[in-house]
Each structure stands twice: as C-alpha cells, then as structure tokens.
C-alpha cells in the first residue's frame, strides 16, 4: 500500500520530466536556429527576428537539396540560458547554424560553445571581442564593433559641424560603453575636439538629470550619448525636457532601430543625430527589394531586429551554395572572404577576423511635417565604411 503511493509519486515525477522537446524537422531537412531574446526585457527583438528569418527561409525553400527549416531559441537575454539552449539544439536536433544573435553578453558565451561543437554563429552584437580578442573560426559578425560605430557616427558629424568643438559624453559603465568611450576619445584627439566632460552611469540607471545638468554646465556644443536602447531613449527624452536640444546638438552613437523612434516620437527625435546599423531607407537595390518584400508579407517596414537576422540567413545560404555543401567547416571556408550583395551594398566577409565590411549610417531625425509616410522618422545623412585593420583588432584566429 505504501509502495503504491510512492510509486505513484515517482512515476508522476518521471512522467513530468519525460517531456520530449519537439522537433519538426525530418532528418534530411536543414534546421537552423536563431538564438535571441524572446521573453524578458528585450522581447521586442525576438519578435522581429523571427519575421526576418521566416522571410529568408520561406523565400529560399531549400538549399543544396535540403529543405530549410528554422527555430527560434529563447535566450531570455541571459548568457547561461543561451548557452544551455544552444547546447540542447546542437545535441538534440543536430543544429549547426545559428544566425541572427543580437545581444553581446550572450553572443560572447554562445560563440565559445558553438566553436567547441564545430558549428557556425553569425551575430550582430557590438562587443569588440567577438571579432577581436575572443574571435574564433566559427563566429562571424554582420554588425559593427565600437571603433566603426564611433567613426561612422561622430566623424561625419564633426565634419558637418566644424564649429562644434566641445563635446560631452554620457557613457554606460560596462565593457561596451568603455570601448565606445575609448574610441571616441581617440577620435576627439585626432580631430582636435575638446572633450569637455564625461558622465558614467550604471546599466540600470533611469535618471539622467544629474548627467544632463553637468553637460549643460560644461557648455558643450555636442552631447554624445554612448548608451543604448532604453537608456539612450531615457537619456534623450530627459535631455529634451531639460531644453538641451536648443543649446547643443545631440547625437546617439547607436540607435536600436525603428521601434525606438516609434516609442519616442517625432517631437523628441526631430533634429537629433543617430548612428544606425540599418535603416529602411538605405538606397541600395537589395534593400529596396527587401523592404518591399517585408511590407508585402508583414505589413510593416523592416527594423534592425528584423533586417539583421535576415541578411545573416542570406549570407549563410549564399555560402552554402558557394561551397556546394551544408557541412559547417566547408560553409565557414566559403564565408571567409565572400563578397556578396547585402543590405548596405556590396559587402565582404573579412577573412582575418570574420567581420563583414559594410556601411554604417548617420541619420537625422525629422519633424512630423516632413515625414513622407508613417515610418519616415529620419533621413540618412552619411554612409561610410570604417574598420580597424585586422592587425589592430587583437584577433588571432587559430
């Protein structure tokens, strides 16, 4: 009698544990997985990345005789969860290709894990280490490291406003922010800009009033926001409320994308400069076609979280066709040095550090009256390619 009870509990426990994690792919299909934040603070990313991969997969259908299928992996914006789910995808479902990662901390962690298992990761995170000191043969990056971000945003602005000699920076105090600041200071020195002050803040900061009043007091000509995402939005919003827009030019080093403009609105973004990894009005044939396709299929204009995984997927497909194989080693070989038509024009995967050489944009926010359609928040003012030479990146690929 007692045995029954315990047996019941045990079998219930075992039964609960025996949830087969489903996989719909047949053995011949090629299953790729996009690891990104689907829940938690960054859930907006996941939603759009799903669409981007879906578009690429459905457009292509099959590659090298294998039907393309994809799965989204929810990293919950936590590196440990990302690693664990990537491990599962590798072991359980034999996934080898991981396009579309977007966050730095998890990309760094996944990069090591995927390299260990002989897979391929294409990431759009900004941490320098990914194609720098932590580079490896399995990892490729489509987006830009901090050097390029600073060069692509601040340099054209310096040239645009030759009278603006005094710059104030607001920097989040962590690796990515510090790297941005370091590069900014180097640029300032080169261009004879007076760096009149810097404010550090923590990653959980919401209150920028103190930093903004410092900026005001320093009588800067330009306020350079080196933070990202929600923090950049908060800092910008509060800067406007302090009337900084009338007193100085404001530039955000890296915009998160269209949804940032949507959540801030034209009143705030009008006249503010942003560095952008992607913008839907990029004037290349590839992008124009892409935007049309996205609008036709999903009824929205593509934002960065949608475009980046899409182009990652396309790169993967092109490489597979070039290598005539779906074996990771051979695809990696085909990717290295590959020149292809991408969203920003002709792009090239640099062999030495697996960084894709492509344009970065400086865009300027517009007022409501000047908007041509509901997504026309900004105009592209400048585009260019700025990359450190491979020797300077500390990347030593085994």
């Amino acid at each position, binding site marked *: 009698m007692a045995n029954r009870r315990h047996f019941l509990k045990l079998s219930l426990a075992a039964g609960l544990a025996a949830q087969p994690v489903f996989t719909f792919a047949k053995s011949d299909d090629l299953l790729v997985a996009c690891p990104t934040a689907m829940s938690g*603070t*960054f*859930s*907006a990313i996941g*939603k759009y990345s799903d669409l981007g991969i879906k578009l690429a997969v459905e457009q292509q259908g099959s590659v090298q005789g294998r039907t393309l299928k994809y799965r989204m992996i929810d990293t919950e914006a936590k590196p440990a969860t990302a690693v664990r789910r990537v491990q599962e995808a590798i072991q359980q479902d034999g996934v080898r290709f991981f396009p579309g990662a977007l966050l730095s901390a998890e990309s760094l962690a996944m990069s090591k894990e995927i390299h260990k298992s002989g897979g391929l990761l294409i990431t759009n995170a900004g941490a320098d280490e990914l194609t720098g000191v932590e580079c490896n043969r399995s990892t490729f990056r489509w987006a830009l490291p901090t050097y390029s971000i600073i060069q692509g945003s601040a340099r054209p602005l310096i040239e645009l406003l030759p009278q603006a000699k005094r710059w104030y920076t607001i920097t989040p*105090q962590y690796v990515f922010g510090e790297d941005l600041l370091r590069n900014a200071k180097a640029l300032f020195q080169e261009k004879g800009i007076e760096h009149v002050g810097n*404010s*550090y*803040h*923590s990653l*959980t*900061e*919401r*209150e920028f*009033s*103190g*930093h903004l*009043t*410092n900026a*005001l*007091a320093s009588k800067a000509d330009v306020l350079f926001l080196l933070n990202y995402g*929600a923090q950049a*939005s*908060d800092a910008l*919003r*509060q800067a406007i*409320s*302090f*009337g900084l827009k009338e007193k100085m030019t404001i530039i955000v080093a890296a915009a998160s994308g269209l*949804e940032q403009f*949507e*959540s*801030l*609105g034209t*009143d*705030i973004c009008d006249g503010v400069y942003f560095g952008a990894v992607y913008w839907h009005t990029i004037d290349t044939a590839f992008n124009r076609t892409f935007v049309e396709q996205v609008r036709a299929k999903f009824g929205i204009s593509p934002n960065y979280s949608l475009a980046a995984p899409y182009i990652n997927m396309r790169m993967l497909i092109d490489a597979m066709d070039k290598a005539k194989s779906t074996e990771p080693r051979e695809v990696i070989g085909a990717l290295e040095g590959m020149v292809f038509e991408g969203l920003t024009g002709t792009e090239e995967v640099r062999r030495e550090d697996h960084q894709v050489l492509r344009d970065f944009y400086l865009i300027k926010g517009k007022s409501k009256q000047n908007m041509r359609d509901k997504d026309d928040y900004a105009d592209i003012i400048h585009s260019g390619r700025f990359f450190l030479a491979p020797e300077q990146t500390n990347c030593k690929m085994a």
Partner: protein
Amino acid sequence: MNLYLLQLVNGIGLGMIYFVLAVGLSIIFGLLRFVNFSHGAFFLLGAYGCYQLVQMGVDFWWTLLLGPLIVGVLAWLIEVFLFRKVYHFPHEIHILITVGLAMVAQEAVILYWGPVGANVSPPELLQGVVVWDSFIYPKYRLFVIGAGLALALVLGLLLEGTRLGAIVRAGSESTEMISLLGVNIQRVFAAVFALGAATAALAGVLAAPIRGVDPFMGVEVLGIAFVAVVVGGMGSFAGALAGGLLVGIVQSMMSSIWPPGASLMIYVAMALVLLLRPNGLLGRA
C-alpha cells in the same frame, strides 16, 4: 555650487515620486499588516493607464485623476475577492500571492501593449524649462515636486483631520481595538488598500512623462519602494516622505560620483536600518 543645487533639486524631485509610491505601501503595511509585492504592479498600471488615456485623446491633467481612480477600483476588487482571504495567513503567503499577481500584471501589459516601451509627453503647459539666473530646470519636474507636496498635504490632513484617518492611525496600533469600537474593518481595509494602490498609480502617472512607460518599470521600482518604506518606517506617513526624499537625494548625488554606488548605498542603508532600528527613522515601535 550651482551643480550641487541642481543635483539636490533633482533628488527632491525623484524623492517626491518615491514618496508618492512608498506612502501607499507603508500605510498598507501599517494597517493591514500586509506585505505587498504587487505594489510595483499598481505603479505600472497607473503609468500605462496614463499612456493609454493620452493615446485615446484624453488630456494629461485628467489622467492624473483617472489613472489612480481606475487602478484604485481594480485594487479594491482585488482586495475584496482575493487578498481578503489571506490576511490571517503568514506573511510568506502574502509575499507569494502578490509576487504572483505582479507577474501576471507584467505579462498582461506585455500582451496588450507589447514589450517595447512608449513615450508620454508632458502637457503643453509644463513643457520647457524655467530659467532663473543660471539655474535651468524642466517645468514638469517642478510640477512633480509640487504635486508630491500637495499629496503630502492632502494625505496628512486626511490622516489627522478625518474620521477615516483616525481609524487608520488607531488601526495601525491595533485593529482588534477599533473593530471592538464598532468600526467595519472590512470596509476600512478595502478603502485603505484601494487608496494605497491609487497613490502608487499616481506615482506612475507622474513618472511617465519623465521616464516613459515600459513593462518592467514595476519590478524596477519595487526595490526602491521597499527601501524608502523600511528606512522611513513601515506604517509611518512621515516616514514615507522622509524615506522617499532620502533615497532620491542619495541616488541623485551619488549617480555622478559613483554610479553603482548609488544603488549599493541605498541597500546598505536599508540593511543598516533593519539591523539597528527596524522601525525606521520615523516609525513607531
């Protein structure tokens, strides 16, 4: 010198929002002996209520009234149908149920409004800055300080001058006593809970034009609310004011000197108060 003055004013502005947020939590604990981990959720719902109303074309001034009202009614319903059952259970149960509620609220917000935040503009009248010599300050933040003071005044009068206030004050000492004196405890609890939630919602509405709305603002702000309540004194109205202002000023002053230190210091302060003077600076024994 001007810089420190500005930091101080910033701190006071921040502190006022913290006060409005914390006062409900404090009084709810003082009277109901109820630990409310869903207080942040009322803040969240207030902020989103404001956003939604503004989107629908309602004037911001009205949201200051409607936001807290809607959340207050919601809270009243939750109290009657849910929390009332668990008052006599140990505090751990309170924590569980309110944490669960907070989770549900957060996910519901994401379901309806999406995970990306949104912006709420201050009303026309309060946009722009005041300039006084070299002192430049956003009008809206001055308004928040004013609103906080006004609320403090109103609540203070309520507590000291009305029958309900007397009941709340007496009830904080002993609920048994006041029910023996013929007061309908159920109704008082429900009213106080609704009021507490409404003030949290008001804090949310006030905060929205400063920091925008996003689904995680409830969780972020809960820790601060607890610090303010603990430091000021659980159950004390004046304590919530003192606690809120203290936290706001410390955060503001420290954020330019040592950013992570700002958060570290307030939690150290919380631990110190709990260890040395658990009733808080202004709490009663």
